């Protein structure tokens, strides 16, 4: 169980930094707590004593949501469920609702935060590949000389390995900014061992923008996770597809590009196989949602991989 001497709920960033300074070396920042509490149990970390828990979810700035034509800014304490409940958000980030519906369950999504999912840096995290596909950058804040200083960093740079990030001591993840991509077709493919409360063995986020006729790829964004220490954008495939005309043969060619993606120690052959299938399935369903012309996206293709 998780034991603490003090549970602090700062109401502002300033208060949060003050608490962190006061409890330096003996605190842990928590948000949704949906990973922290199960972590402190037998079979994982066991009983854990952390003198101070600092809960940042009540800080208004960390709950902000701003959507404009180009970018979406999400406070780090935004619960995952918001991707499903907020239609405008789902419209601006088309892969996220498809991803969120696979994330844990309705109840945990109401509590778990995007910031927590990012900072935990689990290789099986679902939201990170999805945000990576939306070109997420992170806003990191720290207190320097009594002043709150912020820096930004691309998500891909921030994550450095399983459970490892570039978050500095005394630093907080405050916000995530993503490309708003309305009009893109989004999909999220995931496989585990069941269909709810499921941990990803492989997951893939796909975003597709087609030309007005639904024939040509204007833009493609792919990010894969579950198969390597950190999520990876598949820029080779994105570049290959961009500006090309959608056909089954093209997709097959893209899926067959020789990329050695699987770095997991287990289930390698399986994962490789699924990655190829997911590329086909994810591109097909995202293209369909992007309004693909039936000449390019035939029902035969859908049946073969859908």
């Amino acid at each position: 169980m998780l034991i603490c001497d003090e549970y602090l709920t700062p109401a502002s960033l300033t208060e949060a930094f003050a608490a962190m300074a006061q409890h330096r070396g003996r605190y842990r920042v928590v948000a949704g707590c949906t990973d922290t509490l199960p972590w402190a149990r037998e079979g994982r970390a066991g009983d854990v004593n952390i003198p101070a828990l600092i809960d940042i979810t009540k800080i208004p700035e960390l709950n902000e949501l701003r959507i404009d034509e180009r970018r979406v800014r999400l406070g780090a304490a935004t619960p995952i469920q918001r991707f499903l409940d907020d239609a405008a958000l789902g419209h601006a980030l088309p892969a996220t609702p498809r991803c969120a519906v696979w994330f844990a369950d309705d109840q945990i999504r109401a509590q778990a935060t995007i910031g927590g999912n990012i900072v935990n840096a689990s290789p099986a995290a679902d939201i990170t590949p999805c945000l990576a596909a939306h070109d997420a950058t992170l806003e990191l804040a720290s207190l320097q000389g009594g002043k709150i200083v912020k820096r930004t960093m691309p998500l891909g740079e921030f994550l450095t390995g399983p459970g490892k990030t570039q978050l500095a001591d005394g630093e907080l993840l405050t916000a995530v900014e993503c490309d708003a991509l309305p009009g893109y077709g989004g999909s999220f493919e995931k496989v585990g061992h069941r269909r709810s409360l499921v941990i990803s063995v492989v997951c893939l986020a796909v975003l597709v923008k087609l030309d007005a006729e639904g024939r040509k790829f204007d833009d493609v964004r792919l990010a894969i996770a579950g198969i390597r220490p950190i999520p990876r954008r598949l820029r080779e495939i994105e570049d290959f597809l961009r500006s090309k005309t959608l056909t089954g043969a093209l997709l097959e060619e893209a899926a067959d590009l020789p990329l050695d993606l699987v770095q997991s120690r287990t289930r390698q052959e399986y994962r490789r196989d699924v990655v190829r299938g997911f590329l086909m399935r994810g591109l097909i369903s995202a293209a369909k949602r992007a309004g693909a012309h039936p000449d390019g996206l035939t029902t035969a293709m859908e049946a073969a991989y859908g």
Partner: protein
Amino acid sequence: MARKRGRGMAACWYGIARTAAVDRAGAWAEIDDGGSAKIITGVTEIGEGILTVLAQIAAHEMGVKPEHVVIGDNDTGRSPEAAHAGASRQTYMIGNVVALASREARKRLVEVMADVWDVEVETIRTGNGEIWAENTNHRISMGEAVTFAKGRGVVPVGSATFGTDTTGLDPVDGSGNPWQAYVFGCQVAEVEVDTVTGEVQVLGVWAAHDVGRAVNPQGVEGQIEGGIVQALGQALMEDYELKDGHTSTSGFAKYILPTSLDVPRVNSIIIEDPDPIGPLGVKGIGEPAMVPTIPAVMNAIYDAVGVRIFDLPATPEKVLMAIRAKEREAAE
């Protein structure tokens, strides 16, 4: 086609109550003031619905309404032995003994009323909270009848015991008579195998099971549905893993169970082949419900994609790798 469907079936048999050992159960019954009934026996719900089944049986035998049956707690210091809650034995052993005890309590009451009304015992009927004599105008509530009985110094109580005529097995050739009641069943499963991921979804199961006599059909369905889903967990996902005696699956994040999104639609068909020995004709369903499910699902996977899984569970990885091995074999 990425998603392939298939069907499979399997049959089963099962013995009801203790195996190759004499089984027994006891019960006390009383038709209480106001025409309610008390049943005391060493039984408690483990979820299968036995309390409701016993209330129905007692109500049926004594002629009271099920909602007026009170069942005492299972307490070795306060109730007669009904032995354990397992072996698909509760409806068979305890249902039958409660029927017998209820009959004896009823008999006491009926004898009083036959005397009061000066009619033959055989002409007296009970039901729905009333007692009456056939072809007469005598008809009163059970509560009134209990008052009559107590006025004559009679408390309408009954007790009974029910045992099985079974034997152990011969240690050399296994011959013996392990059960006196057997049930049989058959299930058909329809699955969809995703050949991109190897995931198996069991979409539907048709389950035909002999239960002897269904006291509460909804409860029987509940046992069948629950049994099938437990078996499905073993078939497809559950795995208690040990390495050098230490488990890596000590919580529900790693030891995964079927969720609401993993279960088939279950279509139950109840077959009634009454047991000739017990007073009610009932048998059992708890365990046999899950016996044919796994082979039916594995046979369905074979039908769908041509691969046979010999070691459980049939995880997506195992199924997909088997499909690929088969494709390679076919290509050679």
